[in-house]
């Protein structure tokens, strides 16, 4: 199982803060998960389009789409941060 988290503008637009995906060998990278979400179409297709600046963290560390994902990981998607 992979836990997905969405924050801020993404969370609001998707109308969900989290979901779980069953892990499968094809879902072994951030890029693969983004492809799956994008394929849902609609708002998902828009927000995860290649030209959108969505940041990703795997197990609470910033990473990029090359990063590999394994069973049990927590993968978070969010817009550029604006704290401080």
């Amino acid at each position, binding site marked *: 199982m992979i836990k997905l988290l969405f*924050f801020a503008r993404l969370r609001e637009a998707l109308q969900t803060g989290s979901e779980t995906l069953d892990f499968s060998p094809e879902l072994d990278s951030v890029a693969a998960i983004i492809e799956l979400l994008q394929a849902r179409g609609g708002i998902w297709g828009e927000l995860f389009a290649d030209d959108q600046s969505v940041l990703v*963290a795997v197990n609470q560390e*910033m990473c990029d789409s090359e990063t590999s994902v394994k069973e049990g990981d927590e993968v978070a998607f969010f817009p550029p941060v604006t*704290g401080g």
Partner: protein
Amino acid sequence: MNQIIIQTEPFDLAAIQEELRRENPAIGALVTFLGQMRDINEGDRVTTMTLEHYPGMTEKALQAIVDEANERWQLTGIRVVHRVGPLQPLDPIVLVAVASAHRGEAFQACEFVIDYLKTRAPFWKKEQTPEGDRWVDARHTDDQAEQRWRR
């Protein structure tokens, strides 16, 4: 000693500074950055702001920034306190306090921590204005500020 705190309640600027500066009589300099909510942003009146964060990752990201500051400079202590939840104009949002024997290192480390926090710690601001709610966009100047520290 270093401490990182995320909280919804207001924080006590004076108590944090007093505790940090008394920790060690070798401390000669304490530099404190306080970020507070402004009532105007990009020309619009802002009545309230709500700060969202990513619990768990926030603490990790801030710890990594504090660790890096301690590697780069000779410091005796750092405090980072960041509020989340609803805020009003003039409310303090974030405090970064850095103690060191000498002022140059305290200034650099303090600015480094807040510059990195602005681009690397998962906080998001949503503003309530008379025209409606809006998420604050990331600022290009914050990216530039972070770039200066790259090496």
